[in-house]
């Protein structure tokens, strides 16, 4: 466990650093701290062992091209701006929404608005107050900025009203907005200085002091490296910002990052399915620690246009799902580093339905019987997916599994943009891709089921009323879970979407780094670094 050769230098010196500082890490007591002022989700080492002058160097497989929250296209990018900007709320690992800039919130009795009480006495680094006016300016920018990637997430907000300096009211589109608190825990809820917005600052490349978060950017080379330094002034959340400097470096391949971790040039690296096995072996030697996470939503799912002749018969779609051996894909193709999936959410999410997993069976004989009952023979369809990606090998296995049930799949690897554009435009009938990692089911409905990929198009009449009901403000989480459970059941009954598997990702890190196990947003393949600590 303590054979780390990690250092906090920006790069290594020729001499090998092998001294073991035993006892420091293992003596640390794990504790979950959940306080009103923070989600404090770290297993914290002894205070005396924490090195508050430490540098944490991270290798991440996703590039960070922009620091503007409204221009981020991939989930991993928001991990960088989480350090710069505070959000209105934050998300715990139990998917409970917790306070951040907003200390409390409440829907109007009639569901017409969501009112937020803001934390008092907070200022941006430029000295202006984090008040209702700033929240209004920020949310309005996020909704209207050209090319904003969060505009759709905020579409439930009709307008923003300033009630008083610490009270802001989000006026909602009628009957919508139940998922807004969760949505505001993401980059959609990041609050920027009204002054920086008014000044037209280039928030993508040089955000400067536009945030109120625990860190400031000291160096940013898009798609290469972003370096954060802890802001000099005290931060309102005493559980955060225990590390002085954080460097996030883009790693084109996780294996390159693993080499850098082993040589002591990095302290923490994210690896995906293919490299999880390597991390496991390294962890067994004690050279690194490992924290493994299952992705919340299926990393591989088969989307279909149910109006295409190959998929118009629900029995054919059911037969396809029955003929896919998900266990075998996980076991034989991905060395066990994935979970078979039959529904959108993993078991740790509140919208997961345990009973649905009973359908997670591989029944090739039943698939053949289903096709025979339907009187269908010679089913054949082209399957598109992103070329040169992890989809390729899964597609090949699916192809061979379906062939055993008499279904012919023509594989069509394409550039990613063409694959999803072509599918969305109806040029390709089937698409193997990821179900977007969102903790809020209403977002999945908008982007995957009733919009975007339209996975529930064939049963729109059934699903839409339930989805509208579930999006009504004021419902409890249990009430919403029940409604979304009904939707997943309907989707499975009509087999309009075929979830297949969910990859595992693993953080490999120096034993000096703490809190990775409890790091929020790991379920998305992303990160929230503000509560990590590094020991001496």
């Amino acid at each position, binding site marked *: 466990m303590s054979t780390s050769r990690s250092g906090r230098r920006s*790069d290594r010196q*020729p001499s090998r650093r092998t001294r073991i500082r035993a006892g420091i890490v293992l003596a640390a007591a794990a504790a979950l701290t959940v306080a009103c002022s923070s989600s404090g989700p770290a297993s914290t080492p002894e205070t005396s062992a924490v090195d508050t002058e430490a540098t944490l160097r991270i290798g991440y497989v996703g590039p960070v091209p922009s620091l503007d929250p409204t221009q981020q*296209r991939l989930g991993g990018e928001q991990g960088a701006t989480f350090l710069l900007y505070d959000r209105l709320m934050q998300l715990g690992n139990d998917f409970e929404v917790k306070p951040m800039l907003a200390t409390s919130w409440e829907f109007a009795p009639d569901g017409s608005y969501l009112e937020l009480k803001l934390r008092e006495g907070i200022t941006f680094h430029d000295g202006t107050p984090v008040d209702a006016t700033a929240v209004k300016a920020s949310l309005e920018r996020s909704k209207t900025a050209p090319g904003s990637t969060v505009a759709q997430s905020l579409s439930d907000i009709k307008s923003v009203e300033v009630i008083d300096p610490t009270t802001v009211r989000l006026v909602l589109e009628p009957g919508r907005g139940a998922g807004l608190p969760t949505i505001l825990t993401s980059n959609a809820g990041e609050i920027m200085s009204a002054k920086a917005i008014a000044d037209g600052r280039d928030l993508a490349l040089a955000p400067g002091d536009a945030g109120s978060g625990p860190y400031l950017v000291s160096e940013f080379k898009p798609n290469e490296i972003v370096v954060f330094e802890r802001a000099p002034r005290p931060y309102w959340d005493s559980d955060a910002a225990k590390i002085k400097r954080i460097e996030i470096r883009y790693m084109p391949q996780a294996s390159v990052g693993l080499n850098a971790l082993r040589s002591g040039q990095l302290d923490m690296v994210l690896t995906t399915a293919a490299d999880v096995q390597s991390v496991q072996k390294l962890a067994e030697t004690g050279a690194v620690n490992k924290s493994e996470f299952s992705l919340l939503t299926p990393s591989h799912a088969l989307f279909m246009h149910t109006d295409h002749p190959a998929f118009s018969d629900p029995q054919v779609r059911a037969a396809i799902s029955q003929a896919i051996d998900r266990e075998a894909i996980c076991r034989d193709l991905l060395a066990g580093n994935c979970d078979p999936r039959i529904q959108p959410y993993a078991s740790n999410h509140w919208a997961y339905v345990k009973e649905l997993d009973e359908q997670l069976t591989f029944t090739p004989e039943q698939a053949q019987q289903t096709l025979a009952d339907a009187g269908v023979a010679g089913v054949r369809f082209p399957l598109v997916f992103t070329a040169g990606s992890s989809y390729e090998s899964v597609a090949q296995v699916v192809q061979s599994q379906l062939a055993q049930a008499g279904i012919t799949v023509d594989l069509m690897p394409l550039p990613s943009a063409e694959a999803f554009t072509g599918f969305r435009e109806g040029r390709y009938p089937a698409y193997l891709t990821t179900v977007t990692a969102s903790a809020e089911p209403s977002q999945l409905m908008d982007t995957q089921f009733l919009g975007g990929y339209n996975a529930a198009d064939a049963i729109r009449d059934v699903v839409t009323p339930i989805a509208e009901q579930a999006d009504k403000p004021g419902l409890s989480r249990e009430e919403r879970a029940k409604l979304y459970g009904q939707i997943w059941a309907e989707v499975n009954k009509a087999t309009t979407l075929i979830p297949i598997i969910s990859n595992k990702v693993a953080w490999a890190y120096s034993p000096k780094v703490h809190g990775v196990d409890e790091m929020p947003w790991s379920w998305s393949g992303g990160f929230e670094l503000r509560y990590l600590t590094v020991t001496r």
Partner: protein
Amino acid sequence: MVPLVARRVLITVPLVVVVSFLVFLMIDLVPGDPAVKLAGENASAERIEAIREQLHLADPLLTRYLTWLGGSVTGDLGRSFVTNQEVGGLLWTALGATASLVLVTAVLMVVIGLVLGITAAVNHGRAADRIVVALCSVLVATPSFWLALLLVVFFAVDYAIFPAIGFVPLTEDPARWLYHLVLPGLALSARPSAELTLQLRAALTEVLQRDFVTAASARGLTRAQIVGKHALKNAAVPAVTVLGFRLAEIIGGAVVIETVFSLPGLGPLMVQSVLGGDVPVILGIVVLTMLWVALFNLLTDLSYLYLNPKART
């Protein structure tokens, strides 16, 4: 010399125009709309259309190309679709890492090629010659990425002598600049060094059998004087040809090596821009690569003029 340079420049200009247009055309023909890519998977149709208009992607192909070409002539290569940075600045930054890698690679090539080539030639037919030839045969057949991984595992992971990743600009710290480029330089130079060695060995062996060498030896010149002052210059033309071609080509190999060592050069920039559909950056890299190749071809030709007086007439 001046007419040669002028002729090359005159050829290069239309070549850049033609090739850049062909690349522009090919990018346009590749399936996949950059606006969709930029908007993200969950974007609405309105948002995709807004991006398309913002980036003038709906304009006719020729209009877009001429707009780009017009800007390029004035030194404005446009802005990255993805990061909104100026393409010229992006290329300049990335070129710093790639040029550094190429410089170190070139020095290693010359040093390794000269040492091994001369050793093999002056010991022609003996054990040293055979060892050099065997070693070079292995290196010629060794993929650079594989060698790079071996070097990383041995020198960075196991023995921590050199870093596994990263780059420090020369202006920031020359020692650390070199320290970070030793392993990538070795990986990238291994194959061309072996080719240079074999070329030099063959040429020098032939030159050392000529009459003027026997005469020089009879006049009492030492072996080192004969090789260093006379034979090497005569044997240099084919070796310089190999060196010039390899330095021109090396920018392609740098893509892989820069990825393995996480160097912020033109290679990763090229990969990122292709994956992201970042047309202005792709075009900028194409133009830069063409100029790079043209420059090294010109330098190779100029070196002929220096080494071979007959070529000056």
